[in-house]
Structure formats: structure tokens, C-alpha cells
């Protein structure tokens, strides 16, 4: 805000310049041209200024355009799958898609498109990943914001950054080449490529996101509130758990949602490590079963599908579900982020 204030006055040429002129009875130094020009005096500058601003605006709109194009094209390719002859048929198809348990898209006689196992698979591995990553991520964020001295913080930051920077396919490689045989040997699972493996790796990938967002919001809570708590005789754990975390809860929720988005949108790890079995785990707590989340389904089958077939449109429909899912979560996280910013602005 304060950055902009000076030029706002400068850029209002007519009134501002007149006022400056009238206040100064005699110019201090001689300029070859007036310090500020009215649009009439400097038509070219005025026009180019606005044109430039317009150009910048149009270029900025590219990201908006990109979002709209993404939504438009993904939804457009999904519509032929869902559209039936009548409304009732459309609803029936949508119901089959969202609640059907059988995914046999290439069956000759009666192809079935039940995406429920994929949706459940996505939610399942994401949930397990969050259970593993949220405590670790929050504890790390607390350690970095409230416990670690500056030098340790400086040393830990690159570690988190590198964890975040490792490509997802490298995590997938690690999962299938290193973790899967280890799981199979150690726990005697029938296959090492299962929900537990994928969830563990997703947890590692989500932790850096959670840490960085949560730490930002924890640091944004001022010293005063902590000092007040310490002054009342609270220990550090009590201060953090009962004062700091409640104060920073919107940022922490945003951190968890962002971590969740990272996990649910991740493709390579689940494609390689989740085992690619289109099934709903039963019993539900059995993590050693293979699943096939939405992203993996798309990645696996899109390469082998002809453009324009029902299967192709069905995969776009799954993409659509994924897009709507993440879009919704994004809006929620933005709502919480906006709350932090409002508080920061108000403070």
C-alpha cells in the first residue's frame, strides 16, 4: 500500500500539478519542461502510458485465459461421455460413473464405467498420506518457527526445499524399486506396490508444502501473544498448543489443504507405486491392498485409447472430477489464506 502512494499523487497530473504549482510561488530550479504534464500537454506519453498498461493487462490475462481454456477443454471432452439422449439418461450415466464399482472400459459387449474405485482410491491414499504427514509437518513447522535457533533454521530450510524439489517420478522410482521390495520382504505383503507404499511416498511429498505454509502462518503470529503466554507461566508446549496453534489455525488449515492438493493431484507416484488394481480396499483398513487412484487411471489408459471413443471421453470425465475437486479445495484454501492476510493487514 505505502509503496504506491507517492506515484498515485504524481500520476494525477491535472490537479496535483496545479496544486504543486500554486504552492510554489517561484520555481526553485529551471526545468526545460514542466515536471508533470497534463494529458493535453503530453498526448503521446499519455496514450502510450495507457496503451502500455493495457498491453500489460492483456498479457496478465493469459493466466486467466489458460484457466478458462483448461476448464473449457477438459469439460468439453467429458460432455460426450455424460450426455445421454434425455435428461434421465444423463443422470443415469452420471450415477453409474460416480457410484459404479466396475471399470471395464474396453469390454466389447457391455463396457462399464464405474469410477468409484478410482475416486475412493484417490481419497484413500490421500487420507493416509495426510495422517502420516500432518503431524510430522506441523511439528517441523513448530520447531522451525518457535524452537530452532537461526543457524539451525538456515540449515534445515535447504533440506525441505530439496525434498520439495525432487521430481515426482524420482519418488515413484524410489517407491517401486526400493520401497516395494522392502515392504514385501519385511511385512510379507503379497505385493509391495500397494496403498501403503503410495501413501508413504505421498506423505514425504506433502510434508514440505505443509511445513512452508504452516511455518509462514505460525511466524505471522506475533511475539506479543507468545510472550503473554510465557509470562503467565505456561510451558513452551502449552504456549504452542493452546495459544499459538489456535491463533494460527486458518494458516494451518490452508497448509493441510495445500498438502492434500499436492497428494491428490500427484500422478507418477501413485501410478508406479499404488499397484494399479481398480478396486475398493476391503476391509477398508487393509493398507496392503493395491488401489488405482484417478490420476493413475488417466495416466495408464489415456496412452492406449483412441481419440473420440467413449473410453477417451470417460477418462476426461475423471479428469473433470479431479479438476473440480482441486478447484474446490483451492477456493477453500484461498478463503483461509485471505483470513491470514486480513489479520496481517489489520494488525
Amino acid at each position: 500500500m505505502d509503496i504506491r502512494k507517492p506515484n498515485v499523487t504524481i500520476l494525477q497530473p491535472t490537479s496535483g500539478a496545479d496544486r504543486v504549482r500554486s504552492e510554489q510561488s517561484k520555481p526553485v530550479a529551471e526545468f526545460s519542461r514542466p515536471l508533470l504534464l497534463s494529458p493535453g500537454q503530453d498526448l503521446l506519453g499519455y496514450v502510450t502510458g495507457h496503451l502500455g498498461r493495457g498491453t500489460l493487462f492483456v498479457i496478465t490475462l493469459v493466466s486467466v485465459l489458460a484457466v478458462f481454456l483448461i476448464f473449457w477443454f477438459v469439460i468439453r471432452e467429458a460432455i460426450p461421455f455424460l450426455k445421454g439422449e434425455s435428461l434421465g439418461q444423463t443422470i443415469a450415466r452420471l450415477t453409474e460413473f460416480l457410484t459404479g464399482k466396475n471399470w471395464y472400459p474396453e469390454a466389447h459387449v457391455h463396457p462399464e464405467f464405474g469410477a468409484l474405485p478410482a475416486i475412493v482410491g484417490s481419497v484413500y491414499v490421500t487420507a493416509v498420506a495426510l495422517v502420516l504427514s500432518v503431524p510430522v509437518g506441523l511439528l517441523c513447522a513448530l520447531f522451525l518457527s518457535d524452537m530452532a535457533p537461526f543457524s539451525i533454521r538456515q540449515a534445515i530450510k535447504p533440506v525441505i526445499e530439496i525434498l520439495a524439489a525432487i521430481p515426482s517420478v524420482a519418488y515413484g522410482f524410489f517407491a517401486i524399486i526400493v520401497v516395494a521390495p522392502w515392504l514385501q520382504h519385511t511385512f510379507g505383503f503379497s505385493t509391495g506396490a500397494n496403498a501403503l507404499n503410495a501413501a508413504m511416498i505421498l506423505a514425504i511429498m506433502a510434508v514440505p508444502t505443509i511445513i512452508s505454509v504452516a511455518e509462514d502462518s505460525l511466524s505471522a503470529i506475533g511475539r506479543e501473544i507468545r510472550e503473554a503466554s510465557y509470562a503467565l507461566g505456561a510451558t513452551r508446549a502449552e504456549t504452542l498448543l493452546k495459544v499459538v496453534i489456535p491463533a494460527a489455525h486458518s494458516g494451518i488449515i490452508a497448509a493441510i489443504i495445500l498438502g492434500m492438493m499436492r497428494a491428490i493431484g500427484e500422478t507418477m507416484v501413485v501410478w508406479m507405486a499404488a499397484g494399479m488394481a481398480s478396486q475398493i480396499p476391503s476391509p477398508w483398513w487393509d493398507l496392503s491392498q493395491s488401489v488405482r487412484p484417478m490420476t493413475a487411471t488417466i495416466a495408464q489408459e489415456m496412452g492406449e485409447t483412441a481419440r473420440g471413443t467413449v473410453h477417451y471421453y470417460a477418462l476426461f470425465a475423471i479428469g473433470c472430477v479431479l479438476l473440480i475437486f482441486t478447484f474446490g479445495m483451492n477456493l477453500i484454501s484461498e478463503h483461509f489464506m485471505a483470513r491470514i492476510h486480513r489479520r496481517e493487514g489489520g494488525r
Partner: protein
Amino acid sequence: MMLRMLFDKLFTGSAAGSVGLLCLLLIVVLGPMVWRGMGAVVFRETVEFRKMQHAIFGRGSQAEILRETEQVDGLRKPIYDTFDSFAQGIDVDKQLDRVREIYREYGDSLRQRNTPADEFTQLRSTAKTIRDRLTEALETVDQSEAISLTLQVLEMEINFAGEPQLAEFFEIARRYKKTVEGIDPGHRQEYAELLREVRDAMNTLFGPRPDQPKPPLAEHQFGATRWDLVQRDVRFLLYDEQWVQETPGQPLQKKLIPRKQQFAGTELEGWFDQIELDLKSLFRPRLRIYWQYFFDDSTPGHFFGGVGPEILGTLLLTLLAMVVAIPLGIISAAYLVEYGGDTFIIRIIRTCINTLAGVPSIVFGLFGLAFFVILFGRPCILAAAMTLALLVLPVIIRASEEAIRAVPSTYKEASLSLGAGRFRTFMTVILPAAMPGILTGIILSLSRAAGETAPILFTGAVFLGPMPRSLLDSTRALPYGVHGIATGDKVGMTMPHQQYGMVMALIVLVLLLNFLAIGIRWRVSKKLRGY
């Protein structure tokens, strides 16, 4: 009070513990991949590796390689010969056919020589006796009977000294006697089976035999090219790996049975020890730093060679994406900082940027397939690069925006007060001051684009294929290659170092970019603190 303090300590401990866990995870994740990946570059090469390098990449001097091949083949020949003669010995069907043929030929030659009738009958009946004895000896499954029968045949040799056609009878008999003395003819079939395994193992270890035609696939043309592969593959030659169930109901257990024991008593027995002893002279291992790994093309399936085309493709995709995304990103950031208030439109733009940042990468891939691939007519580098550009656009915008905002407003005010226009102020004062921050963001998004797989899956990446000739061709790329090589089981079984090498190349590329970014930021922050 004690309880509260204890809880406090526990809490602090667990927080520090989770940070420690994170560091440990980093080592556990990166350690094996980088360490074993280095094995693709630094290893002990064998003579087979030098042969392969010469045949595929034209490296090394021909004379040197020929000399070495000759020496090694000279050592290998006796092994092959012994195994061949043993194989002939137990291949009874072939010998039976040969015996009958010799008898027929002998009869024909007698007739051609116009032998008198009574002599003819006598000679032929003796030859017939020999043939029958030999056939019997070959067919019987009893060891002592086979030996005595061959002895009977050999006793008759003196009578036929003048008959060159029959000399082969006795040769067969002598060889078979030797074989039969070593093995029980009842287990002939089992020996043949074992011998086939041994020969397969020899083929993977030594490569195809020099006297046999070259296999069509490059992966079969050479033996074990690395010392670690030699040591792995020689185990299949020296030991028989069997899965046996020792107690019912329990999983099968792996058991190694020495081949020496399986071939005990035969002429082959000694050779297994001999091979183990001579392994070094058979392969001549030497330390090699195969830095060309990062530039070499590979044979189909990545059995030999390096990751050159993959690295080139990745760089091409990433740089092309950056050429599009950097100007768009910086201009957008400049607009958002310079003109962006809290208006409705700006808020929409920000929401869109956040949404773009949150779109799953596979959905970018779908979009690229439905839009760019149609636009350019086929999956190609351009389509994949555009998809990646959209993916990193929000990252660049955010980083640049932050960097531009971090420039102290006094800079700008000073410039404006000197009479510089807005554009000039931005270009000459704000942008240079924000440049290190923007650069950091750009490098980080570069590393992000280099590592992304899902957006390029359907839009222009292939696992195997020729080098691209134009931007409208598809290309190989490191991330997709890593996926392909990790899930393709054959190369993982035979050449694990190629798997790890590829992922190491990707990680090293990405981490180098990240270290560069961290370095730039560190220098800038040091400079800022210095003021």
C-alpha cells in the same frame, strides 16, 4: 508440575525428532538412487564393455581390441570345447543316427568296391554286430552294461584297422565310454537339461560364441560388460538356483546348489573352479569413468549406452517452455505489483493464478492432449513445451511478484523523483534490483519443469525413438524415461545400473538447478545483510 515439564520436554523432543526424521528421509530417498546411479558412470569395465564401446560408439583402437579379444577367446576356447564334447557325448539320438548312417555307408562302399560275395557277407555281418553292440550301449540306461558293451566294441577295433569308414564307430565308442564312465546314462536327460542351463548362463556371461552368427538384438551381442555384472552372472554358471519347499505350508526357500556338485565325476567338474579362478583374466576388468554416459545415445531398451537424447530432450522441452513462460510471468507479476490494487478484476486474476497453480499435473496433460496436440496436429515437442509453460507460469508469477515487491520503495521513489518515467523506472531500477529474486524463481521453476512427467505423457514424450529433427517431432525425455525404465522389468533384471543411472541423471540435473538457486539467494541475502 513435573508432568507439565515432562510433557514440554516430550513435545520439544518430538518436534526436533520430526525434523531429524525429515533429514533422514532425504538421505534415505536420495542416497540409494544417487549412490547406485553413480554406478552407471564409475564402474569396472570388462573386455566386453570395450568391445561394445567399439562396436556401437566407435571408441578405442581396433588393433588393441582385436588383440584383447583374441587373448580372451583363446582362454575361452578350451571351455567351449570341453562343454561341446560333453554335450555330444550325452546326445544319444544324434550318435545313434550317425551309427546307423556309418553302417549304411559302409555297405554301400563295400558294394562299390565289388567285394566278393562271401567276404561281403562276412564283413557286413561283423559291422552289423558292432553297430548293434554300439546301439545297445547307447540305448541302455545301465552304466556297467554300457561300459562293457563299448569295451566289446573297442576290442574289435584291431580287426578293422584297414577300414577307414568304420574308424568313426570306434571314435564314437571311445568318446561314449569316457562320458559313461563319468555319468550314469540313466540320468542323461537331466544332464542335458542342466547343460542347457549352463550354456545359457555362459551366453549371458561371455556373450555369443565367436563361431556363431551375431544375434540381431544389440542387448544379446555382448557378454557381461561390467565387473559387477560378471560377478552376478557367474553365480548362475557356478550355482543352480532352486526354490524348494522344505516344510509343507511354508513359502519356498531359495537354495544354491553348486554346479560342480551336479556335474561331479564328469570332465566338466574341474572347469567350474577353473572359471572362478580365471575370472579376472577372462574379463580383464579395469576402472572406468564413463562420463560419456550423459551424452551417449542408447541401444533400444536402454541396455547399453547413455542418456544423451533424454537429457537433450528434457533441456529442449524445458528451455522452450521457459522462453514462453518467463516473459509472460514477469510481465504479469509487474502488472500485479504496479497496477494491482484490490479491485474485483485483480482478485479474479489472482484466483485464476492460484487455480492454475493447483491444477493437477495430469490435467495439464489432458488439456495439452485436447488443445495443443490438436493445434499442432500431433504430439510434439512444441505441444509438450507449451503444456509445461502453462504449468510453470503461476510459479514464475508468484516468485517474480514477491521479488518485485521486496525491492525497497525508496529505490522507486528516488528514480521517480529524478524524473524517470514509470516504464524507465521499472526497467532500470526495479527490475535489476529484483533480478536475483526473479532468477531464483525462474531456476526453481526450470527444475520443476524438468522433472514433471504427467504433462508430457500424452503431448510429446516417448520412451524409445529417434532423435527429434524438428520441433514438430516427439522426443525422449528424462522423467518419462525414468518411468519407462523403472516399470520395464527386463532392463531392471539385467542392467539395474541403467535404471539407477537414468534417475540419477534426472536428480542431478534438478538438484544442480536448485543448488544454483539456493546459491544465488544466499549471495543476495548476504549482500542485503551487508548494507
